[in-house]
C-alpha cells in the first residue's frame, strides 16, 4: 500500500492510526465504514454472488480488486462509482438508494487514510430474520386457554380445545362466533371437505332426521373411512408435491408411468399412513423398502417435477441444465416439507431468512445423485435372476447368428426354454422413480449459482437454519447416495424438528378453512404471513406428533370443533371488523375447486364412475414427435367420467373446466390455489359440450326418478339432486314455465351453472 498516513478519525474522539497494518481503535472501521459497504455494496459484491468479479467483503479481496487505491480517494473506482457526476446519478449502487453525502465522505476519509482493513474481518449480508424467527423455534408447549367464568362462551365452545384457542382470539378482537350451521349446510360442507363430493339425498335425509347426539360424529367417521377421502386429500397433496404427468419444458412428453404414485398417495391417505413414514418414502423409499414397488413408488416425488430433456452439446449449458434439475428437487422438498424457500439461497445467502448459500448446496449434494428416469422395481434377487436369464439368451442368440445362416434347432430349443423361464418370472413394474448414482466425492458451492465457478467445498448435511433446535448431521463426501437422502428424511421428521409438523398441520387447517393459520402454507419465513393463532398451531403440531403423525385423528378433531360447525352467514358488524373471516367468527364460504366441480356435475347427473386407480384418462388429444402437442377435446366419452384426480395432468396443457377453475399446471409446488372468477369459466360452463351432455343426462335421470308426466315433481327432483333442497314456491313456478317451454334440459343446465351449486357454505 502506498502513501500510508494518519486518518483523522471521523468520530472526533477516535483516531485510527493505519500504520504497519495495525489499527488503533480498530472499531471505527467496523462501526463507520463496514456498515456502509454492508448496506450498499456487499449484497451484490461478495465472492459468493458477484458476477463482475468484484468483492468488497474481505480485505484481501478489496486489495486485489483494484477498486480502492489507498490514499488516493479521487482515483479510486469505488469512490468514483458511488459519487454523482454533475446531473448524472451515481453508477452504483444499482439496486438500492444512492449513498448519502455523509457516507461518501466517510468512504473518502477511509481511503485517504490508507483504506486499512482489520485482519480477517468479513462483511456479511444479514438476512432479515435470524434463527430466533418464530417458525424456527421449538414447538411451544401451549395449552388451550381456560375460559374464565366471566366469559360468555357460546354453548359447547368449551369442550374442544381448538374452540378455546379460537374463542380467545375472537374475544381479543371483539368478535363472537356464529351459531351452528343447519344440518343440511353442515353435511354438505363436511362431505365436500372430506371427500370432494356432495352428500346423496339418502345421506341428507338420514342426517337431518337423526336425533342421536352422536349423529354428526358418525357422519364424520363414515366420511373419514370412505375411499373418497384419499382421493380428495391426496389431490391436495399432489398440488404440494407439484405432481405432473408430462416432462414439461420444450419436449413435454407425457409420462405414462407416474400414475402409480398418485394411487400410492390416495391409498396412503386412506390408510392414514403416518406422515413421517410418507416423507421418508418420498425421499428414500429405496432405503426403507428397497425392491418393494409399493414403497419405492414414493420416490416419484423426487422426479415428478418438470425436467429439460432436450439434450445440449454445449458443455456448460449442459451442466447448468443438470443443476437446474437438482434445483427443482431442492425447491420442491424444502417448500413441501419445511415451508422454507431454500431455492432463494441458490446464488447467495437468503436475503430474508437465515438460510445460507452453503445450506442450499448441502441439499444440492444430498440430491446430486438423483436423475429423472424410469426404473424396474422388484426385489434384487428377482431382478438379478431376470438379468441373468436375459444375458444367457443374448449370448445364445449371438452364437446362433454367428454359427451360420441356418438356425440351429438345439439353440432354438434352448432359446424357447429361456423365454418360457423368463415368462414365468413376475414382471417388475417400470416406475418413474428416478435413477441414483454415487455423486463425486467433492462437491462445491456454485458461486453466484454459476456451475463454472467453484466456491467452498460442501458435503451433505442438515440446514444450519435449524441447528439451534434440531440435532444436526453432516456426512462426508464419501457418504453413499442413498444415505444422503435417508438422513435428510430422518432429520425432517426427527422429534425436535419443529417446522415439518407445523407446516403439515397448517396445510390441514388451510384446506379445512380455506386459509391456513399461516396464510402462506409453503413459506414460514420472513416474507410469509405470520400465524394468526401461533399457540393453536403449535398445539396442533404436538397433537400430530402425539398421534404418531397420523392425520385422521386431527381431521376429526378439527371438523368436530364448534369453530368448524358454525354457520357461514355474514354478520354486518363482524364483516366490518374481519371481512376475510381470519378470526373465524364464521365458517368461511368457498367455491368448489376445479376437481370438485367436475366430479359433482358427473355425480348429480348419475354418471360418476367411482373406479379407483389405474392409468389416468385424458381430456385432450395428444400428439408427439420430438415435442408434444395437447389439444383440448370437445367431445368426451364415458371413459372420462371418473374423478378428476385420475386425469393425466400434463404440464402446459389447457384443460377445459379444470384449468378455467384454477387447477394448477404443476410447474411448481402449489400450496394454495387462488380462486378466480372469470368469464372464461362462464363460457366453459355454458358452452362446452360436456356441460350440455351432462345437462341432458341429468334431465334423463330426473325424468326417470320423477316420472315423465309429473312436471312439478320433476322440478322438485332436479332441485334436490343438484342443490339438495326443494325449490321455493317462486322458483318452482318459474322452473315449471321453463320446463314447459324448453324441456328439462334447460332447467338442468341452469341448475348446474347456478352459484348455489358452485359454493359451499
Amino acid at each position, binding site marked *: 500500500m502506498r502513501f500510508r498516513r494518519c486518518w483523522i478519525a471521523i468520530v472526533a474522539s477516535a483516531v485510527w492510526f493505519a500504520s504497519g497494518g495495525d489499527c488503533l481503535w480498530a472499531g471505527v472501521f467496523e462501526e463507520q465504514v463496514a456498515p456502509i459497504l454492508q448496506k450498499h455494496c456487499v449484497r451484490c459484491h461478495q465472492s459468493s454472488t458477484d458476477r463482475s468479479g468484484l468483492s468488497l467483503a474481505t480485505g484481501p479481496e478489496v486489495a486485489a480488486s483494484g477498486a480502492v487505491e489507498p490514499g488516493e480517494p479521487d482515483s479510486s473506482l469505488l469512490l468514483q462509482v458511488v459519487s454523482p457526476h454533475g446531473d448524472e446519478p451515481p453508477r452504483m449502487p444499482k439496486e438500492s438508494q444512492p449513498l448519502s453525502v455523509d457516507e461518501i465522505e466517510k468512504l473518502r476519509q477511509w481511503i485517504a487514510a490508507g483504506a486499512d482493513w482489520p485482519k480477517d474481518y468479513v462483511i456479511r449480508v444479514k438476512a432479515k430474520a435470524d434463527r430466533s424467527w418464530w417458525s424456527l423455534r421449538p414447538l411451544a408447549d401451549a395449552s388451550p386457554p381456560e375460559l374464565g367464568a366471566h366469559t360468555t362462551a357460546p354453548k359447547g365452545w368449551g369442550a374442544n380445545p381448538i374452540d378455546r384457542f379460537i374463542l380467545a382470539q375472537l374475544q381479543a378482537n371483539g368478535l363472537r362466533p356464529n351459531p351452528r350451521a343447519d344440518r343440511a349446510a353442515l353435511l354438505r360442507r363436511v362431505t365436500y371437505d372430506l371427500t370432494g363430493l356432495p352428500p346423496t339425498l339418502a345421506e341428507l335425509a338420514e342426517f337431518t332426521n337423526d336425533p342421536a347426539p352422536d349423529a354428526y360424529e358418525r357422519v364424520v367417521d363414515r366420511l373419514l373411512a370412505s375411499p373418497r377421502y384419499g382421493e380428495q386429500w391426496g389431490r391436495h397433496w399432489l398440488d404440494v408435491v407439484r405432481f405432473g404427468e408430462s416432462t414439461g419444458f420444450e419436449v413435454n412428453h407425457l409420462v405414462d408411468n407416474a400414475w402409480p404414485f398418485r394411487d400410492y398417495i390416495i391409498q396412503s391417505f386412506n390408510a392414514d399412513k403416518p406422515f413421517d413414514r410418507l416423507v421418508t418414502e418420498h425421499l428414500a423409499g429405496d432405503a426403507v423398502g428397497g425392491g418393494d414397488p409399493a414403497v419405492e413408488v414414493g420416490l416419484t416425488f423426487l422426479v415428478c417435477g418438470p425436467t429439460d430433456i*432436450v439434450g445440449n452439446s454445449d458443455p456448460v449449458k449442459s451442466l447448468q441444465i443438470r443443476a437446474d434439475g437438482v434445483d427443482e428437487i431442492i425447491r420442491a422438498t424444502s417448500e413441501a416439507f419445511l415451508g422454507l424457500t431454500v431455492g432463494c439461497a441458490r446464488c447467495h445467502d437468503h436475503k430474508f431468512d437465515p438460510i445460507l448459500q452453503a445450506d442450499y448446496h448441502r441439499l444440492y449434494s444430498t440430491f446430486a445423485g438423483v436423475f429423472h428416469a424410469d426404473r424396474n422395481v422388484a426385489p434384487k434377487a428377482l431382478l438379478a435372476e431376470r438379468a441373468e436369464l436375459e444375458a444367457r439368451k443374448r449370448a445364445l442368440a449371438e452364437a446362433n447368428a454367428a454359427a451360420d445362416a441356418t438356425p440351429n434347432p438345439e439353440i432354438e430349443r434352448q432359446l424357447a426354454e429361456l423365454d418360457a423361464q423368463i415368462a414365468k418370472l413376475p414382471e417388475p413394474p417400470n416406475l418413474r422413480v428416478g435413477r441414483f448414482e454415487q455423486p463425486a466425492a467433492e462437491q462445491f458451492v456454485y458461486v453466484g449459482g454459476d456451475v463454472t465457478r467453484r466456491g467452498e467445498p460442501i458435503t451433505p448435511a442438515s440446514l444450519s437454519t435449524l441447528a439451534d433446535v434440531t440435532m444436526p448431521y453432516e456426512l462426508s463426501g464419501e457418504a453413499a447416495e442413498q444415505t444422503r437422502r435417508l438422513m435428510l428424511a430422518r432429520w425432517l421428521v426427527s422429534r425436535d424438528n419443529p417446522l415439518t409438523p407445523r407446516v403439515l398441520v397448517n396445510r390441514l387447517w388451510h384446506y379445512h378453512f380455506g386459509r391456513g393459520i399461516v396464510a402462506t402454507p409453503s413459506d414460514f419465513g420472513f416474507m410469509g404471513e405470520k400465524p394468526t393463532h401461533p399457540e393453536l398451531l403449535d398445539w396442533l403440531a404436538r397433537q400430530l406428533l402425539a398421534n404418531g403423525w397420523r392425520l385422521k385423528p386431527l381431521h376429526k378433531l378439527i371438523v368436530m370443533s364448534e369453530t368448524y360447525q358454525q354457520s357461514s352467514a355474514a354478520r354486518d358488524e363482524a364483516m366490518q371488523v374481519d371481512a376475510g373471516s381470519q378470526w373465524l367468527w364464521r365458517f368461511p364460504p368457498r367455491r368448489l375447486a376445479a376437481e370438485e366441480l367436475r366430479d359433482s356435475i358427473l355425480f348429480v347427473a348419475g354418471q360418476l364412475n367411482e373406479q379407483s386407480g389405474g392409468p389416468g384418462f385424458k381430456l385432450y388429444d395428444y400428439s408427439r414427435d420430438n*415435442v408434444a402437442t395437447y389439444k383440448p377435446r370437445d367431445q368426451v366419452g364415458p371413459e372420462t367420467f371418473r374423478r378428476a384426480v385420475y386425469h393425466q395432468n400434463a*404440464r402446459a396443457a389447457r384443460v377445459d373446466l379444470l384449468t378455467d377453475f*384454477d387447477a394448477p399446471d404443476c410447474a411448481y409446488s402449489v400450496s394454495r390455489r387462488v380462486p*378466480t372468477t372469470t*368469464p*372464461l369459466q362462464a363460457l366453459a360452463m355454458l358452452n362446452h359440450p360436456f356441460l350440455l351432455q351432462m345437462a341432458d343426462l341429468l334431465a334423463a335421470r330426473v325424468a326417470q326418478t320423477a316420472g315423465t308426466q309429473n312436471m312439478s315433481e320433476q322440478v322438485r327432483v332436479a332441485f334436490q339432486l343438484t342443490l339438495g333442497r326443494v325449490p321455493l314456491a317462486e322458483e318452482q313456478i318459474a322452473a315449471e314455465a321453463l320446463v314447459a317451454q324448453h324441456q328439462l334440459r334447460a332447467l338442468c343446465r341452469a341448475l348446474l*351453472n347456478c352459484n348455489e351449486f358452485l359454493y359451499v357454505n
Partner: protein
Amino acid sequence: MPLDESLLNCVDETVLSRRGLLADSFRGLAGVAIASLLGQDGGTNRLWAATTPQPSGAGTPHFAPRAKRVLQIFCPGGASHIDLWEHKPSLEKLDGQPLPGETGVSTFQGKNGNLMRSPWPFQPAGASGKMVSSLLPHMARHVDDIAFVHSMYSKSNTHGPACVFMNTGSIFEGFPAAGAWVGYALGSANENLPAYVAIPDIRGEPPNGQANWSNGFLPAQHQAVVIADHQPVRNVAAPSGVSADEERATREYLNFLNEKHETQHPGSSELRARINAYKLAARMQLSAPEILNLNAETAATHRLYATADPNPLKAAYGRNCLLARRLLEQGVRYVNLYCASRASGVDGLLNWDAHKTLKADYERHLPIFDEPTAALLTDLKQRGLLNDTLVLWTTEFGRMPTQQEGVPGRDHNPDGFTCWMMGAGVKGGVSVGATDEFGRRAAVDPTTVWDFYATVLHLLGLSHTQLTYYHNGLNRRLTDVHGNLLRQVLA
C-alpha cells in the same frame, strides 16, 4: 314468463343495435338471445374479469405512460440476427475462415465449422441507411421508425426455456408472461375483450406452448386468451342444438336463481362477481365473433395484408396480422403475435431454426413474415395507433456466425441477438448496442430481457421495480432482481 320484471328490461341497447351485423357470424340467433341478457352495469366493471382483488395494479400506471398497449411479434425458432437485422461485413470478408479464438466450439447441437456469410446481401434502407437483409424489402420501409437492440443475450440456448425466458423473464415454467403482468397492472381497456390475447401461428404453438402466455403465479384471469383467425376463442360459441329461445330462457332462469341466492347470502362480493362474469361472458360471445369478422375490412386492406396470398401460410399469417390490428384498435392491452411455431420433425421447416439449410429455410420463412408484418406496421401508423401502441419484435436467441460442422446452417447462439421496438415513446431509426465483429457475442451495451422489459414497462408508465406480486417467498417482478432502462431507445 313469470320472471322478475327487472330481467326483461336489462337490455344493453348498444349491443342490441348490432343484431343485424352479428346474425351471420354467430350461429344464427343464439347470439341475439344472449344480447338480451346483458345488464347495464358495464361501467362498473371496467376491468375485464378483474373480479378478484388486485393488490398491485388497480388499472392505473405509476406515472404518465407513453404507450397504452403493446403488440409483441415473436418469431420462434431463433431468428438469425446476422441474416436479418445486423450486418456483419467481416463475415463476408472472412467467409470460410475459422472464427478467431473459438475454433470448433461445441454449441447446442454440436460442433461448429468455419464462419459463414449470410446467403443474401444486405442493403441500406430508409433515411437512416440502416443495413438490412435484401430478403426484407417490405420491412425495410419501416427502419426509420425502429429502434434496434443488437446486443441482446439469453440465459438458455434451448428453444423452450429461451422462448419462455423471452416472454416471462424466467427460463422455468410457472412465471407470468409480460402480457399477464401488464394485464394485472392495467386491466383491460375494453370490457368486452380480454386484456391479453395470444395469436399462435397456423403452424402451431411456439416452443413450450402455453407456458409462453401463462398467468404463472398471477391469478388465472391474467392468462392470455388464445384467439386466431384459424382458431376462435374456446367455448365462445353457444352449444349446437340449443335454440335461441331456449338459450335466452335458460340464462334468464339462471340469473333469477343467482339473484335470489344472493339476496339470501348478502355480503359476498364473489357471488356478485360471478353473476357479472356471466354477463361479461355474454358480451364476449358477441364481441369475439365480431372482432374475428375480417370481412368487415375493405378489399384494399386485405390486399395490403396479403390475406389472399397463394402461399397459405403467408395468407394465414396476414390474416392474423389483421386480427392483431383489430384487437389493438378495440383496446386489448397486450397482443402476442406469432410468426412460425415450435419445431416438429425437421429443423427449420416450421420455424426459424435453420440448423442445416439456412438458405432454403429462410427463403421459406421470410416471405411469410415480411409483407404482412410490414403491412401491419403501415396500417397501425396510418390509423394513428402507433402513437400509443408499442411494437416489439422478439425471438428466443440468435444464431452462430459459423456454420454447423459440415452443413450450411447455423446453430443456436444465446450470446448475441437482435430484438427491436417501435411506436409509442420509441426513438426511430436508431441501433443500440452491437455484437462483436462477427455477431458471436453481445459486445456493446449487452442487454438482457429484463432490461428490455424494464423499458417496456417504463413506456407503459410502470416502474418495473414496483410492479410486484408475492409468490413463494418473494415479491416477484417481471424483471426478477435486474433490469436497467434502455434510455437510448426512448424518444
